[in-house]
Structures are given as C-alpha cells and as structure tokens.
C-alpha cells in the first residue's frame, strides 16, 4: 500500500508541475511591429488580427493562412482570406505547413507542406506544393506532375519534389525549386501551358523582387548551411547578402532594396545588394509580410 501512495504522490506532483508550466508559459503576446505583418511565435496570431496561422502571406487584398487543427489526426488547411482577414475559401491539404505565398495582384496562391512518411527511409519527408488560382478557383494540390525540362530535355523521375513558389506580375510565370536525385534546381514555370524548365542549380525558395528583375533565394553552402543570395535574372549573376548566418526561409521583399526573412525565431531584414548588415526587426515572430500602408515606416527602420 505504501507503494501505491508513493506512486499517487509522484503522479500528483508531476501533474501539478505540468499544470504549473502551462500556466507560467502563457505570457503576454509580443507587441505589434510597425509597417509589417508577422506571425507572433508565442500565440500564432497575425499582427493586429485575431487570425491564428502557422504560415501567412498576403498581397493586394488576398491573404493565405496555413493552419493545423489538432485532433487524433491533425488536419491541415490552406485558408484564403479577404482584406479583412475573413475566410473566403478553405482547402484541405495534408502535411506540415512550410511556405505560403500570394502573387502581387492577389490572384495566385501557392503553398508547400512537408508530408511525413512519404519516403522510404524512416523519418523521411517529401514536399507537396499546391497552387490555387483564385480567379478561376482551379486547384492543383501537388504540382509534381508538371512536365519538367531539365537542361532542355524532358525529365522523368518519381522522386521530384517542388517547393517555394513565387509568381511574377503576369500571374502566369513563376519560379520554384525542384529537387531530384539529391540535387536542387531553380525552375521557371509557365502556369497556363503547365510546364517548367530548370534555369540554375542550387537555388532554393526563390522570391521575386517587386520589380521582377531579381530573385532572393537560399543557397546551400558546402558546410550544409543555407545563405541568402540574390540572383539577377538578366545576367544570372549571384550576390551573397550581408547575412552571415544560416537562413532557412523563403525571403519576402519589403521594397526593391530590402529583403525580410525569419531566422532563429525572429524576423530580420538585410539590404538586397549584398551590402550592410542584418537587422532584427521583430523578436519572437515569423512569416514577415510587407504591409503597404506602413511599409515606408519599416523601410526607414530597416536602414
């Protein structure tokens, strides 16, 4: 009987400890930064709204919010939001949210999720990238079937994975990363004709600049880290940016001169021309999105 008592006591103490921790950790939400929409890490809330997302992006009057609803089987959704952050469409997707983007006009929405167990080695992952045309309502849940031309030749393989889509201003041309046989390539896609061709190697999570001339991307370094670079599409020249640390994010452009990204739990900015130093804009946040109304204020802050 003494043993039962000890076990009960231990269970009670441990239970109290867990409850205490739950109470202690529910601190206040971080303050809303000026001129930016971000996702507050502690609460999951998007700045100044009561919308909770794992990944978020918005452009013009369209927002995309990737959410995971917990349950015996967690469910993932891509929510299409209007200018007031109200849900206008809900797409059931499977996997863990990774990237979310909206084209500048607000028409084309894309996202990438990691699908667990979709690989032969245990602990393996693969990516599913979806594209939603909000004008026609047409949905591609996994773009891996798109005809791919690698170095000009039609390419077939079961192991292609796409991630990190970024649409151009015409809402047809897009950039993305494809991986196959252990290599990653930058692809340029044509949405209307549904085909893609590789442009360069080792370019991940491209993000097209507002003027459409450059791509910010993460490049895998020999040591295994990713470094932010900018690729000039006219000359195909790559410029490393002034952020020396490992960055695993799809950058967003604040304006034509500055990129935003999440790193180590905070939101940072760095000049897009390779000069300058990274600056921490928001602590405890991710998914930075320029918010035009106040973007000028952040531009000043970022300089």
């Amino acid at each position, binding site marked *: 009987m003494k043993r039962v008592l000890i076990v009960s006591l231990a269970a009670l103490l441990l239970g109290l400890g867990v409850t205490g921790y739950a109470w202690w950790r529910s601190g206040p939400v971080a303050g809303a930064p000026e001129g930016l929409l971000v996702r507050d890490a502690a609460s999951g809330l998007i700045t100044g709204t009561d919308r909770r997302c794992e990944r978020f992006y918005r452009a013009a009057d369209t927002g995309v919010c990737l959410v995971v609803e917990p349950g015996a089987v967690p469910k993932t959704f891509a929510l299409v939001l209007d200018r007031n952050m109200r849900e206008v469409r809900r797409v059931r997707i499977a996997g863990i949210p990774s990237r979310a983007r909206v084209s500048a006009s607000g028409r084309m929405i894309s996202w990438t999720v990691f699908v667990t167990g979709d690989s032969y*080695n245990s602990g393996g992952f693969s990516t599913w990238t979806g594209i939603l045309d909000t004008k026609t309502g047409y949905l591609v849940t996994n773009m891996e079937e798109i005809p791919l031309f690698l170095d000009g030749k039609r390419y077939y393989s079961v192991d292609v994975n796409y991630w990190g889509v970024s649409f151009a201003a015409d809402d047809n041309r897009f950039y993305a990363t494809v991986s196959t046989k252990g290599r990653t390539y930058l692809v340029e896609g044509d949405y209307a004709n549904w085909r893609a061709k590789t442009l360069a190697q080792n370019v991940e999570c491209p993000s097209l600049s507002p003027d459409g001339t450059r791509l910010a991307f993460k490049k895998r370094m020999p040591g295994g880290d990713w470094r932010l670079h900018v690729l000039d599409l006219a000359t195909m020249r790559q410029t490393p940016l002034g952020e020396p640390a490992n960055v695993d994010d799809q950058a967003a452009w604040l304006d034509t001169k500055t990129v935003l990204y999440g790193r180590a739990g905070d939101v940072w900015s760095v000049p897009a021309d390779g000069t300058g130093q990274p600056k921490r804009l928001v602590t405890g946040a991710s998914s930075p999105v320029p918010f035009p109304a106040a973007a000028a204020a952040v531009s000043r802050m970022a300089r």
Partner: protein
Amino acid sequence: MYVATAKLTRLRLLLAVPGNVVALGAVSLVTDISSEMVTAVLPYYLVLVVGLSPLAFGLVDGLYFGVTALVRLASGYAADRWQRRKLVAGLGYGLSALSRLGLLAAGASVPALGAAVAVDRAGKGLRTAPRDALISLSAEPGQQGQAFGVHRAMDTVGAFLGPLAAFGLLALGGAYDLVFVASFALGALGVVLLVLYVRDAVPARVPVPVPAGPVATLATVTPPPAPRPSLRLPTDRRFRRILLLACLFGLVTLSDSFIYLLLQDRVEPAFFPLLPLGTALAYLLLAVPVGRLADRFGRMRVFLAGHGLLALLYVLLAVNASPLAVLVLLGLFYAATDGVLMAAVGPLLPDATRASGLAWVQTGQAVARMLSSILFGLAWTVLG
C-alpha cells in the same frame, strides 16, 4: 451470473502472468505514451516552431541507428556483468525521460536538438535488452510467449495512446513545449513505477556472500564474481541458428514506413497518420493470443509462420488489396515475431547472461532490417 464468472476466470487465466511482467508492462505502457507523444509532434515542432527543413533533419537518422545498436550490446553486457538488469534498464528509462527536458532547453539550436534525440535513442537502446531479460527471467520457461505477449500488448497500448495524448494537449490549447513537459512527467512516472514495482530477478544460483566477521568491510560484502559474461556470441548451437534465421529474415523485411509509402496511393492523404495506428491496434489485440499459441505449438514454428504471413502481405501489396487487410497482417506479423522471438531465445540462454544474449538477437535483427531498408530504398530510387 455463471457466464460472467466464467468470463472473469478466463480473463484471469489470460492475464495469469507473473507480477513482475505486468509491472514491466505498466512501465513500458507509461513510457511509450511519453515517447510516442514526442515522436508524433516532433516533425511539427521542428518545422513550425524551430523552422527547420526536415529534409535535412532526416539524414542524421541513420547515425542514431548505429548509436542505438552499440548501446544495446553494451547495456546487455553491463546488465550481465554486474547482474543489475533493473538498474541498467532504469538508467535507460531515466535518460529518455531527461531527453525531453533537453528538447525543451535546446530551443532552436540544431546540434542541441540532435543531441536530445540521440540521448533519447541511447536510453531506448540501454533499456531494451535488460528489460526483455527481466521478462524472460520472471516467467516460467513454458509461458515465455504469453509473458512477452502481455508485455508487448501493454507496450503497444502506450504507443497507441501517445499520439492521441499529444494532439489532445495541443487541441486543449497547449503548445509543443507543453507536450515535452508532459512527456517528461510521464517518463519520470515510468521510472518511479519501475523502481517501486519491478524486482530484479537475481538468479537463485548465485550464492549470497556472508560477511566473514563482525567487522565486515565493504570489500568482503561485494558478491563473488558472477558467471563471467563476455562480449562474445553465446555458443549454444540452437541460439546461433535462431540468431542467423532472425538476421536472414530481417534482410527481407520491408520497413513499416516503406509499406505505408506503398499504401499511400490507396488512401486519402488525410489518413496517412492513421496507418501506424491501425497496425498498432491489430498488434496489441493479437499479441497475447499469438503468444499463447506460440507456447503451445512451438515458438519457432509461430515465428516462421509470421514470416509466411509477411510473404502473404507482400503479395497483397502487389495485387493492390485493401489497405486494412495489409495493416491487420502487419500487426499479426509483429504479434507472431517480435515478442515470440525473445520468448524462443530466452530459455536457451543461461540466466546470468540472458541480457547480453537477447541484445545480440535484437541488434542482429535490427542491423539486418536497416540493411534491408537501405537496399530497398536504393532499388526504389534507381528502378523508380
């Protein structure tokens, strides 16, 4: 009334396993809730909170495997060397529980997260062989299959509840770190249960030393050298034959994730996470009856039949049979091979070297399965 009593008696008969085995089962149940909680949410945590690309994270998994294999052999040896199975197993349980706090403390540091996961795997490697040796030593030679069946069923109940508990906590508004804290608490509770309820079955043949005089020094109280365990393979011929067989079968065993991958064309993506739960459900329901069957008709016979079922499973996969049938067969395969193999090997080993002997079988089988998944993986990539 009579029917109810008869039913109760049957249930009692079914659970008529030594208290030590039930205690070990309870420890495993609680510990498995704890560890499966973390396994279920870790990918979400790494991507959503830490911001990692799991494509990069999966690569280190192979490395951990090597660590686990070595730790398992060493722990079997240590448990035999000092005849302290409970202590070594307890260290393993404790280490895994502590690794949850490591996850919490690691924050966004990838090396620290990797270290925490490695500590968890090391803890798992540390506890498996001494725990199975305790089960084996606690049960009569004729009831090994049933004892292991009860233990594995309880263990799998924990594995079944873990993801539900984790996502339940998240649904209640908890965050991922709260899942780690709760997992640590359950892990610690498992250690408490082990300390209080599990007895180390010290073989009766080891003579208890009597202090020589009234001034017994520490040195005189230490027991005389137990039968010397060594890192060498046990010499029993039947043991070696079974070990060889287990390794050969391991080489043709597809990994679970590979089977689930093949099933994914046939189920909705939303149900992918349910596939392992289906297998677990079949396994936990079948482990005890199949274990009893093994005691009655021969454990190696059941073990072989289990692999016959595996062959049938491959055929079902090839002809696109229903995923449900595949999951049930997979659960049945585990019920007929996992605990049953330990039950078959245990009685062939001397009491004093049982932990290291079982460690050899477990490690041999695990290495063979690892090789098999690498080979299948290569074939899958190359042949497409």
